[in-house]
């Protein structure tokens, strides 16, 4: 063959093989079998490279995922936020079929760009999202996203996870971080023991690099109520020693330094004008007890301000001036807690803004050994001589000293002039948070409508929803809200009355008396009447897994609910087949179902108790039995009465 022809054929082959349609890289047949078990999707490549220069950093990401079924679709859609401190420079997406052949290609202009504007209690916010979804549903398929995102401050260094979620296998995940010599990164590798990984460190003249590589991570099933997925799989926390945000600088190698940075960010925002101070002083002029002063000022805050989020730019991290909150009557958690702090300061009481992660306790635990920005909320700590009063300044209903379920019993960071100090918020147990309900019904089989009276005591976090609804809705709208949660179908809420109190540990208590008129509880046959009385569900933790349980299960907080039914019936009937009693007792909780017949009354005592704690996987079978018995047995009370 002449040389020219050979060269021509070679060149032709090179051209043909480089055509995208012939790329085999993302062919789904190339996925190792071990990665397809239990996997709704497989990450073919998750590559993140972070380059830190001065106080800024750029993130370069390539993310390729193969979706095998509808359960994996959500992981193939793109949603990434940005704001005034970050910006996308490059963004594209590619869709491949099962053979790895490119079907569609999209550029940045094809991505939707949406703001979060419109939520009722936000005002100014600069958060936006880039979102995209091919909405391709022929399985399997592969999508690739590539983007470059620049951040104006190392304050926003992310935590990186090697495996994004349960049901997702990972073929390869890589994190590389390139940082300057004079501002080295700090990192903490968590849960690394079980997985393949390699760590390389190279030195260059001006910069250094760290790299971690993970390969062939199998999908696993998240077992409910175990440690959250994020806390079980390997992740890397990143931070740098020196940070700055706008004109504020600090060091974050200790929690003390981290707290000092935030303290300085908010310093001198707690100043009120002379006139405002006079107004505040007038509120507490005859009061000497400090705790009483706190209560009075807290009530004033609750009555005269409302929550409005303002997180534009630096206001996402810095409190708005107290005087502005005083003038406008609104603020967010930072603004309101700072305003409360300013009012207390005006009466000579010292208090401290406190950073906290608000929400599920299991999801995000403050790492006392590794300072990072893991907070999303601010409360106020008021240390008095005999007591510390914690204030949730965004609530217009909580008693002073009560922190809601979303911030209690966790580590927090108090911001003082000497730096950050770790403390723990109060915990509440079943003696503080419970529901006791007495339900009575005098059955009249001649009438289509039955009257049912509820007398309930809600305490602690059980009372929170009702507190909020009762205070913030007009009466009729409140009644509609209560009706929406009743277990009946064809009914009317006739009356409802509430009485408020505060018990020990400052927890709220509500006594509620409600009367319902309910239809279709009774069906009549030739020889009997059937009463089917629905019971309100209690929300027992559902920890059922598809596979064998291996992880311990955790109940972060306890639960105590008692229902006592009294059903009176006329002499014209005789009850038959009274259900049998059930009593289950385990370390994690107990369930009691106790029917009793006495005179012309049938009573049911139904009690649910969950004990907070961590329980080994070998308790799972017992819990499942406990759960299924409690749930299926407590959907409704069904009684039959023979006609005499």
């Amino acid at each position, binding site marked *: 063959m002449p040389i020219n022809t050979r060269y021509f054929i070679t060149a032709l082959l090179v051209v043909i093989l480089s055509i995208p349609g012939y790329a085999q890289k993302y062919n789904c047949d190339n996925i190792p079998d071990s990665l397809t078990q239990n996997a709704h999707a497989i990450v073919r490549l998750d590559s993140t490279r972070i380059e830190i220069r001065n106080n800024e950093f750029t993130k370069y990401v390539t993310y390729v995922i193969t979706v095998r079924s509808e359960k994996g679709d959500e992981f193939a859609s793109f949603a990434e936020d940005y704001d005034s401190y970050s910006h996308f420079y490059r963004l594209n997406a590619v869709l491949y079929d099962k053979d790895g052949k490119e079907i569609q290609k999209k550029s940045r202009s094809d991505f939707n760009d949406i*703001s979060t504007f419109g939520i009722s209690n936000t005002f*100014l916010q600069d958060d936006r999202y880039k979102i995209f979804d091919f909405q391709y549903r022929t399985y399997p398929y592969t999508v690739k996203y590539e983007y470059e995102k620049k951040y104006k401050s190392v304050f926003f260094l992310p935590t990186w996870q090697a495996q994004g979620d349960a049901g997702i296998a990972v073929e390869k995940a890589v994190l590389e971080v390139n940082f300057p010599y004079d501002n080295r990164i700090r990192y903490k590798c968590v849960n690394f023991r079980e997985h393949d990984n390699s760590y390389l460190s190279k030195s260059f003249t001006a910069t250094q690099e760290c790299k971690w590589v993970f390969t062939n991570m199998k999908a696993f099933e998240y077992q409910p109520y175990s440690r959250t997925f994020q806390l079980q799989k390997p992740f890397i926390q990143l931070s740098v020693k020196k940070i700055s945000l706008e004109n504020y600088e600090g060091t974050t190698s200790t929690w003390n330094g981290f707290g000092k940075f935030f303290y300085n960010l908010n310093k001198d925002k707690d100043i009120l004008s002379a006139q405002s101070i006079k107004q505040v002083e007038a509120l507490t002029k005859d009061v000497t007890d400090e705790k009483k002063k706190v209560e009075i000022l807290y009530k004033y805050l609750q009555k005269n301000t409302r929550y409005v989020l303002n997180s534009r730019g630096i206001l996402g991290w810095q409190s708005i001036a107290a005087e502005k909150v005083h003038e406008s009557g609104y603020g967010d958690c930072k603004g309101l807690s700072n305003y409360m702090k300013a009012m207390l300061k005006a009466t000579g009481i010292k208090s401290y803004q406190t950073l906290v992660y608000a929400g599920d306790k299991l999801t995000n635990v403050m790492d006392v050994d590794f300072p990072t920005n893991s907070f999303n909320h601010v409360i106020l700590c008021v240390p008095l001589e005999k007591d510390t009063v914690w204030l949730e300044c965004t609530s217009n209903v909580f008693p002073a000293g009560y922190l809601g379920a979303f911030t209690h019993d966790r580590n927090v960071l108090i911001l003082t002039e000497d730096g950050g100090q770790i403390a723990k918020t109060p915990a509440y147990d079943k003696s503080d948070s419970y529901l006791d309900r007495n339900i009575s019904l005098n059955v009249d089989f001649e009438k289509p409508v039955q009257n049912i009276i509820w007398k309930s005591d809600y305490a602690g976090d059980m009372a929170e929803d009702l507190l909020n609804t009762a205070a913030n809705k007009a009466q*009729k709208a409140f009644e509609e809200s209560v009706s929406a949660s009743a277990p009946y179908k*064809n009914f009317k809420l006739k009356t409802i009355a509430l009485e408020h109190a505060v018990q020990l540990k400052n927890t709220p208590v509500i006594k509620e008396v409600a009367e319902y008129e309910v*239809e279709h509880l009774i069906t009549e046959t030739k020889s009997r009447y059937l009463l089917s009385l629905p019971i309100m569900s209690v929300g027992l933790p559902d920890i059922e897994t598809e596979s064998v349980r291996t992880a311990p299960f955790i109940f972060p907080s306890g639960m105590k609910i008692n229902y006592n039914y009294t059903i009176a019936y006329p002499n014209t009937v005789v009850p038959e*087949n009274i259900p049998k009693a059930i009593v289950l007792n385990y370390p994690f909780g107990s369930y009691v179902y106790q029917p009793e017949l006495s005179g012309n009354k049938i009573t049911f005592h139904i009690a649910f108790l969950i004990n907070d704690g961590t329980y080994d996987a070998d308790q799972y079978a017992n819990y499942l039995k406990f759960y*299924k018995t409690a749930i*299926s*047995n407590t959907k409704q009370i*069904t009684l039959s009465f023979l006609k005499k």
Partner: protein
Amino acid sequence: MKKNNFNAAILFAILFFLCPFISMGQIKPDLDNQTTLIHYLSMKEHPEHPEASAFYIHDIVEQNIGIYFYDTELNIDVALKVFKANDAQEYAKLILPKFSNRTRLVNLKVTTYNLENGVVQTKELNKKALQDAEIGKNQSVQLLNAANLKDGSIIRFQIVIKDAQYIQDFNFQKELPVEYASFELTALKKKKIDIKTSVKMPFKEFRDIDAFNQSSLPSIALIYPQNRHITYKWVRRNISPFIKEAFASEQPLEHVKVNFTVNEVEEFKKVYESSLKNATWDEYNKRLYDTAFSYAFAKSDFLYQHLPPIIGQDTDSFQIAKHLFKYVQDSFATVPQHWANNFQDLIKNKKATAPDLNLLLCALFRHAGLSSDLVYVSTNRKSPLSPDTVQKKDTEIAVRVVINNVSYLCNPAVKDLPFGYLPYRYYNGYARLINKTGGAIMLSPELAKNRSEVEVNISPADTVNNKFKISFRKSFGIYYSIGERAEYKKDALSYKDFYKKILARFYPNLEISNYTLKVDHLDNMDQSFTITAEAEIEMGDNAPMLFLDPFLQKIYNGENPFQKINNRSTEVEMDFCLNLNYIFRFKLNDALTVEELPSKSSLQYSNPATIQYTQNAHYNAPTNTVEIRYNYDIVPVAYLPEEVKDLNAFYTALMKATNQKLLLNKK
């Protein structure tokens, strides 16, 4: 002296008790009057709508239009009384567009009033409080949040804007109660204006401005000519909030729409529409056949050549029609405006208006040798076509094709219905054919029928362990299938879970295992979307008698849809003809015997029946099987609001019937 004091006391008592009523019926709430202001600040709830977290004291828009339509001055004065601040946060926000260079925000005042210890406290914000924000891509706005909003506050927005486009639509009705709403427009007399109003109480018209201003009637209108100008003003008082009522198809907000005739197109439209008033249907048919729709009926070599790849090798007329319909339905996007000069352009651009798509389909049918016409329908049950008058408003074009003497109607612009089906709202009576000769056809509501079938079968799986197999199969019918397909595609997991909960209705202590849900015809619109839920079940307790709920498919989920029987304002309209057949079969094992069956039931609403329900149950001893059936039929008629009480009673009886239990004894 005593008598005078007593009379004064009575007068005071009368005034005190009448005050709430005086202020509710007053000419216009005047918040600049201190007494009125304090009265509103003292209110604890709205007298007629105590559920409202706030209400509009007044909602006033006045606009003056000069020579050009951008030569305007707009005055807005809106005041809200807020009972619950946290529930009414949305109303404290003011969002204004970022005006162009021409348009100017001349004045802005946002005032919050509070009553503290009997004294009115005021907080005012002006233009300087506005902050810029971007709410969308290239969408900039100006924002302001009212200060000092608390429970009981009044917020007042006073805005003056110059040289903006005039406001064409004004809603008197909102989602909150409105005490006083007015819309005023002053323009040059020579401008031609088209006005449309929709209100529950007709306006009483005034020409005398003084009489108008002194009237406290709930619904008044003013037409007031002056030298070169004319003023139009509409006032509504005490408007209830908009609440969407069950089974109410058309519920527009009370509103007024104004439209100035601005150019030749508008003029032409008006002339054209007025000419229609005098035309007969035959004349209109000829006009459309000869001109606007002519190319649906003309021969085209292009279309002949275009057919073969669509039809393929099929020779069956019905299949050919389906291929052509699917081709037009799937290949072209429906757009509101698109100018295509001919079918070549239309096909090349892959998009067209709805009428053009129907013309294309009709033309393709005809070129394929099928007999086809266009059909002219009303899409509004409240304004069906009349044989006596040509109507243009609320109409659409569809296609009819006749195969083996059977007519099939379709509209390829509607993407979620199969061949042979039109949207149910088209079936409202008289319709017209558009072809060479014209003519009428009847699209009666009974033709838009949704037939659903549900079949439940339970049989022993394992006699030793008292386990049963259950199968719940539901075929949704053509119209319900549209929504069900969308729900399943949106979230298949929740959808599957929903039907597991349906199975769980059978018995409170039911243990369900090996649950699966299969769907059929998810993408095949020619067939009803069908689901089959299967599982193994066990009655998981030791009760000697089982009270089972055999009605797994409940009408309206077991809830009476007409529980609210007071103050209904709209007619009740069912969407389409519905027929639901339910069969429940339970083959017992040897351990169970029948104690009692649900009783027979037969219910009918009105005569002839527009709603019917029949229910039967029997036990077949030879096969040891319990069989329960019900049939539920409705015809889509409209019921007056007052009939809600009777409908409530009917459905109460129906709920009672389906609330019955199947009682079995354990041997």
